[in-house]
């Protein structure tokens, strides 16, 4: 098929436009996809379970939190609750993107929401705010390469991660805290970010040393959330 034939079909053109937006996300997320696979196996997952987790949950930060807590022998329901807590932000994405794809058939909407990861949300919002239509072809054109690569990386990382001779020398046991710190920093433009982080840090350290793990996660998180909710309203009116 020639390039002209592709551009004459609006759905194909939209698909490839979306695809191009997906490529940088694939590159940026690749190390984390591989790392997830390797760490999942190190924390007691089988290769199949690591791949299944990437395929079924499809949310990097929450998967990392899941395997970290699983490896720490935390109660299963608390692992699930923590995955849910980390992904809770998607509720806001969903509410925003939902308005832009309301005209799609319900089955397509239901499918699209499965792929609603952070960059997908960001690009859909940018496209919508420009006044352009968010089409199904465009959306899936962006989503599919990211998803397929993410799942493949879990398999590659899980298969070959076990071959690392000395995990401690390579710092494998401490890569997750560094990664989580990066995620914490990525939210620093949100209102009340610093006081929330300080409140959660103090509460989680105290809880860790008194009540003990794994409760420092729930207690620390709750402290930050309640602190944000209790602050004077003014700050929350700024766009986040």
């Amino acid at each position, binding site marked *: 098929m020639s390039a002209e034939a592709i551009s004459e079909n609006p759905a194909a053109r939209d698909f490839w436009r979306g695809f191009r937006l997906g490529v940088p996300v694939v590159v*940026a997320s690749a*190390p984390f996809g591989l790392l997830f696979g390797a760490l999942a196996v190190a924390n*007691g997952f*089988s290769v199949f379970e690591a791949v*299944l*987790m990437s395929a079924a*949950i499809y949310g990097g930060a929450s998967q990392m*939190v*899941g395997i970290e807590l*699983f490896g720490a022998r935390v109660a*299963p329901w608390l*692992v*699930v609750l*923590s*995955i*849910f807590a980390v992904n*809770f*932000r*998607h*509720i*806001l*994405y*969903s*509410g*925003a993107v*939902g308005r832009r794809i309301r005209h799609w058939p319900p089955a397509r909407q239901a499918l699209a*929401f*499965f792929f609603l990861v952070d960059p997908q949300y960001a690009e859909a919002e940018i496209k919508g705010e420009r006044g352009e239509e968010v089409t199904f072809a465009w959306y899936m054109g962006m989503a599919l390469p990211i998803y397929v690569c993410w799942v493949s990386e879990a398999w590659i990382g899980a298969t070959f991660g076990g071959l690392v001779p000395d995990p401690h*020398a390579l*710092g494998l046991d401490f890569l997750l*805290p*560094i990664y*989580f*710190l*990066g*995620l*914490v*920093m*990525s*939210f620093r433009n949100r*209102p009340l*970010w610093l006081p*929330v982080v300080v409140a*959660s*840090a103090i509460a*989680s*350290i105290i809880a*860790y040393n008194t009540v003990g793990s794994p409760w420092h*996660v729930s207690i620390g*998180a709750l*402290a*930050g*959330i*309640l602190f*944000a*909710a209790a602050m004077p*309203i003014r700050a*929350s*009116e700024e766009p*986040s």
Partner: protein
Amino acid sequence: MSTTLWIILAGAVLTYLTRVGGHLVLSRFEHIHPRVEAGLNAVPAAVLTTLVAPVAMSAGPAELIALLVAGLVSLRGSMIAMFLTGAAVLIVLRQLLV
């Protein structure tokens, strides 16, 4: 069914609910209460902080310096840059400090 599978499937169902739920629930409300919104906004930073702070408190000098350098890089650089720098500092310091 094994515990791991149970965790993965329950986590997947709840994650999908967060992705479809905002559209189904929040779109019915004209207005979200500002305090609820402020609380929701704080969720990711609050949860993720608890996975760093206690670990940092019990970490050795190599780990602390790696975290510090990575944190500084994240002020300017991308996520990848901060992560790779932190990992590199950690590996080098572990060889040196033993």
